[in-house]
């Protein structure tokens, strides 16, 4: 049924998207504003790249960004590896002991308020240090462990959904043809769920890169991530170089999303073409 959108739905769409994008666009515009007062447009000296230059001269921000990037990359990788194993266990091993508890543990970090996750992890690290001497204080390592834990839940959902659509008989066929279980996983299962693993990695990276609450609980004095830095800056009052930072990040994400979209469209087109070849092949 091809029905046109009703005026109500159409206006809600326009309103909704305006609501979502208005602040983002305002940030982009104000990042070129010469005035130090973030919210006043200085029409004499604008547009200017001054804030971008200041941003790149700010070692504190660059260091924090670097730390955030490193933590996000390591956390995403760790989370995806553990999530792949967990998803495999949940989808392929239908019955095992403690499966119920396992299922709860894999989804709970997603719905739990971050203050609780952060608080509980910090108390664990403190207790661990007391009992075993490890981890020695809090820092990048504890942040990474915390991020792996909560990113894992999201990654499991993504990978599990994909794995459930992989026909089990493909793995059985490989085994039937002489491949041992580990080989089956590497040669058949892994290539087939690779797109989901890639999206899970990206999602985990973003979640880790963006996290502030959990990070604040488990970070130490020597390790300040980018969101922590932004948070403290914003608390002290708005500062225009944040606009420039936001614009750069929005630009990067947009490029990534656009590339992902283009790749998706291309595979879709190729799939259609292949289907045509197949129907013409009788």
């Amino acid at each position: 049924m091809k029905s046109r959108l009703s005026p109500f739905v159409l206006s809600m769409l326009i309103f909704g998207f305006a609501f979502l994008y208005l602040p983002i666009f305002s940030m982009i515009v104000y990042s070129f504003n010469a005035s130090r007062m973030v919210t006043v447009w200085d029409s004499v000296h604008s547009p200017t790249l001054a804030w971008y230059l200041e941003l790149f001269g700010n070692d504190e921000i660059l260091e924090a960004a670097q730390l955030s990037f490193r933590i996000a990359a390591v956390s995403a990788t760790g989370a995806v590896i553990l999530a792949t194993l967990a998803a495999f266990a949940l989808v392929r091993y239908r019955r095992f002991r403690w499966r119920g508890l396992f299922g709860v543990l894999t989804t709970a970090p997603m719905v739990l308020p971050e203050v609780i996750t952060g608080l509980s992890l910090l108390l664990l690290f403190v207790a661990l240090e007391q009992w075993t001497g490890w981890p020695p204080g809090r820092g990048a390592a504890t942040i990474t462990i915390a991020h792996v834990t909560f990113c894992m839940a999201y990654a499991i959902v993504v990978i599990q959904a994909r794995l459930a659509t992989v026909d089990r008989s493909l793995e059985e066929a490989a085994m039937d043809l002489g491949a041992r279980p580990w080989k089956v996983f590497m040669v058949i299962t892994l290539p087939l769920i690779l797109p989901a693993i890639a999206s899970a990695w990206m999602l985990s990276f973003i979640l880790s890169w963006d996290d502030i609450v959990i990070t604040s609980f488990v970070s130490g004095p020597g390790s300040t991530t980018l969101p922590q830095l932004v948070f403290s800056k914003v608390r002290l009052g708005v500062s225009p170089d944040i606009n420039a930072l936001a614009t750069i990040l929005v630009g990067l994400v947009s490029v990534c999303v656009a590339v992902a979209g283009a790749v998706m469209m291309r595979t879709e087109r190729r799939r259609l073409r292949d289907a045509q070849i197949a129907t013409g092949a009788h």
Partner: protein
Amino acid sequence: MLGCGFADRGFPVNHRAFSGRWPRLRAELGRRSVIGLPFGWLLLFFAVPFLIVLKISVSNAVLAMPPVAPVLIWGHDRILQIHVQFSNYAFVLADRLYVAAFINSLRVAAVTTLLTLLIGYPMAYGISRTPGVWRNVLFMFVALPFFTSFLLRVYAWIGLLGRSGPVNGLLLHLGLIHEPIQLLQTDFAVYLGMVYSYLPFMVLPLYASIEKLDLTLLEAAADLGCRPTRAFFAITLPLTREGIFAGCLLVFIPAVGEYVIPALMGGPDTLMIGRVVWDEFFANRDWPVASALAIVLLVILSGFVFLLQKVQAQAEEAG
């Protein structure tokens, strides 16, 4: 081409010799580690921490108070005090401030959930009814803010809502107000920030369930004389219930414990439980009370999830 039967020609391609039980054993070992690694991780870094929170929440508050080394004192406590103490819970539940924070958090989360549903449903519906490529483009535009930093988007609103910001400027220009009004550090700002931040979490599950809807059902309804508006309430809405439940869960639960938005956009009197836990922990260094607050919050949220699941199960049964 192959000649006649190769089965009786012997087997030029050798199958591996049967090696008995060893491969089964190895497969079992592999299976154990596939389950064990993630399970072990989650047990250690997710389940055990809760037990610790639970334990600390029943520890003595007075002994944990010294800000220098609360950990050590808690260690002595472990030896000295074996008996469980619920004074922290009594303290939390008796204090009107904490109770008010809980109630306020639930209210803010409920209003946020309702508003995101009211805005998000028409949006999700509109996107899923948009033809062809545009649908994917619009979908991506909903997901995009989710991928851009949450903190920075909140920051953008702070700029917009400031005393000399564009919103006040527009209102002044239109003559609706005569001097800048206080928009930031109000409940209004908290609601705005919450709805704004959680809207994608509502739209995405709604979109997924509306898109799955079989359109021939609406055609059948129209064929049987049902007008579009009635068809929406009679068919579309009940059949997308699953998405509505999922969206509400994804918005409500994290919204109850939200810290960043009330901290940055709310006033000093905006009491939300996430903020209270944070302050008890970082400012007052009262770990037992913070732990007790977290446990109470967890119990409330679990109760809510349980209730929602029950409602959902009943709805499934009914129709």
